[in-house]
């Protein structure tokens, strides 16, 4: 049927518009359906992340993310709660936050050798005897954000170890004399040692940075009075000569007090030699300063014509 040009144009326009409208209908509906599907998921999202987003985000950045799940430490059913985006997350038996004693059992599931060492330590000993401030695995390694000690961001990275230990061992309240009797100046005295200074300035040989754990051991750290301790005076030589440190150098440190601030007595008297030397040099340095500047200022003063010389 032949139509006039005007009508053809109109029909063409209508056809075009119908196609566009159909297209839009499909697009808009798809978007709606997809987003509503997502909404469905969000609405029904009862995964761990939904409530514990901070912990989950930390956990995602940690070294454990790929090999263990929330269930391994906090209980629940692995099938249902085994992933972070689980269905029906509130359905199973959770054990909540494990106690500091129980934590070691949990870590031992994979890290059994390390935990064996830890159970020899004075830290574990104190924890078991009820000292709540004694450290468990988590106090040094973190909880959800554990990173390998080779990662510079980790709390157990080699150059951050002194700070880590000092966190408790510089704390006067925690180390009180009637409680533990541990000196709190160990970080300061360590800072005066060549080990610290050379390493912080990029020393070649000291690059392996002898920090607290190199001498005091970390997991199986013991009190100096314990004959099996690495810092028991008779064991010091072996500690200094360990692999990667001063092996083969015939270290004769017998009974030596390594941390610089410790007193050195004249033979068997109570004459504190370090204190005497300190007093002497304080006097000498003050004298030298006053002498030098005094003469400079006196010289200048004598050249000034405040009062004319007669």
């Amino acid at each position, binding site marked *: 049927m032949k139509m006039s040009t005007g009508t053809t144009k109109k029909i063409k326009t209508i056809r075009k518009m119908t196609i566009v409208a159909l297209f839009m209908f499909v697009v808009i509906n798809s978007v709606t359906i997809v987003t509503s599907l997502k909404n469905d998921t969000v609405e029904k999202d009862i995964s761990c992340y939904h409530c514990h987003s901070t912990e989950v985000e930390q956990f995602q950045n940690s070294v454990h993310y790929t090999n263990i799940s929330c269930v391994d430490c906090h209980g629940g059913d692995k099938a249902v709660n085994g992933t972070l985006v689980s269905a029906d997350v509130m359905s199973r038996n959770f054990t909540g936050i494990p106690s500091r004693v129980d934590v070691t059992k949990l870590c031992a599931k994979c890290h059994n050798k390390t935990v064996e060492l830890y159970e020899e330590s004075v830290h574990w000993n104190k924890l078991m005897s009820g000292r709540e401030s004694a450290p468990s695995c988590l106090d040094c390694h973190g909880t959800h954000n554990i990173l390998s000690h080779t990662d510079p961001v980790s709390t157990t990275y080699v150059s951050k170890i002194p700070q880590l230990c000092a966190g408790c061992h510089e704390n006067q309240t925690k180390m009180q004399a009637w409680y533990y009797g541990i000196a709190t100046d160990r970080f*300061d*005295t360590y800072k*005066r040692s060549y080990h*610290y*200074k*050379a390493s*912080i*300035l*990029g*020393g*070649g*040989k000291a690059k392996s940075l002898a920090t607290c754990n190199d001498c005091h051991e970390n997991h199986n750290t013991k009190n100096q009075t314990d004959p099996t301790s690495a810092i028991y005076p008779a064991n010091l030589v072996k500690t200094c000569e360990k692999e990667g440190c*001063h092996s083969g*150098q*015939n*270290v*004769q*440190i017998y009974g*030596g*007090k*390594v941390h*610089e*601030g410790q007193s*050195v007595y004249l033979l068997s008297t109570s004459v504190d*030699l*370090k*204190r005497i*030397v*300190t*007093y002497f*040099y*304080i006097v*000498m*340095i*003050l004298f*030298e*300063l006053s*002498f*030098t*500047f005094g*003469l*400079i200022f*006196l*010289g200048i*003063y*004598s050249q000034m014509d405040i*009062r004319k*010389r*007669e």
Partner: protein
Amino acid sequence: MSELKFKRFTLNQRIQHIIFFMSFILLAYTGFPLKFPDEWWSRWMIASVGGFDNRTLIHHISGFAMIGISIYHVVFHAILEKPRYDILFNLKDVQDFWQQMLYFLKISNDHPKFGRYTWKQKFEYFGGGFGAVIMGFTGILMLNPFESMKYFPLGLIQIAGLFHTWEAVLASIAVFIGHFYDEHFGKFPNLSWLTGNVSEEEMEHEHQLEYEASIDDYNAKNVIKKTGDNATKSHYDVRNRLIIVFSKTVFTVIFLIVCIWMLWISYHTLLEAVETYIL
């Protein structure tokens, strides 16, 4: 202006002094960053010598240089040459000191007349000498601690460390502030450490007794006669003056920076000493 000059330092003495002060400066430069490793300038100074291991090497080599030149100095001047006794303290030094104090405080108008070495120069000489001995001995003790620990207990080596670090501060104050001010800052440019010569003015002013003794004998060994050169060298004059002014400014700036640095070091050293060993 007189063209007479006096020979104060022989070539041997000048070379000794150059070796000594070069090792002293290198030792201080590579030593103090180790004492204050947390400071920004420590890291900068260590980087400027090419890292920590270079710093250690330079420090040890300069240390041996200082020990060597000190031994040479004593052997040569006390044994090989006829020893001179005018470097030793005597009663006149005490009298000179007292008289100079009275002069400074404007109580007296009479400045003491010095011989070849003033009391202050003797003081600097023996201070530096003892300093070098202490630094040398304690430095060697700490050079290889394990070797030293075969003969001495660890505590003694720690005490050697205290002597070493505090004597360094003392000596640096004495040299960088005291010596530089006395001998270099006030009489800039003092070239006697290079040429060995001092002018007649300076001899008359600072070592009057020696001046009087030698000027009587016009042919005395230490007098260098220079014929007056009357050629006009006006443009050299201006150029020389500009060089001197420029050098003096640079020297003053460096001197001030070093003074401030020394004061900072002294303060923190004393603070640490008191906190650690007294309190």
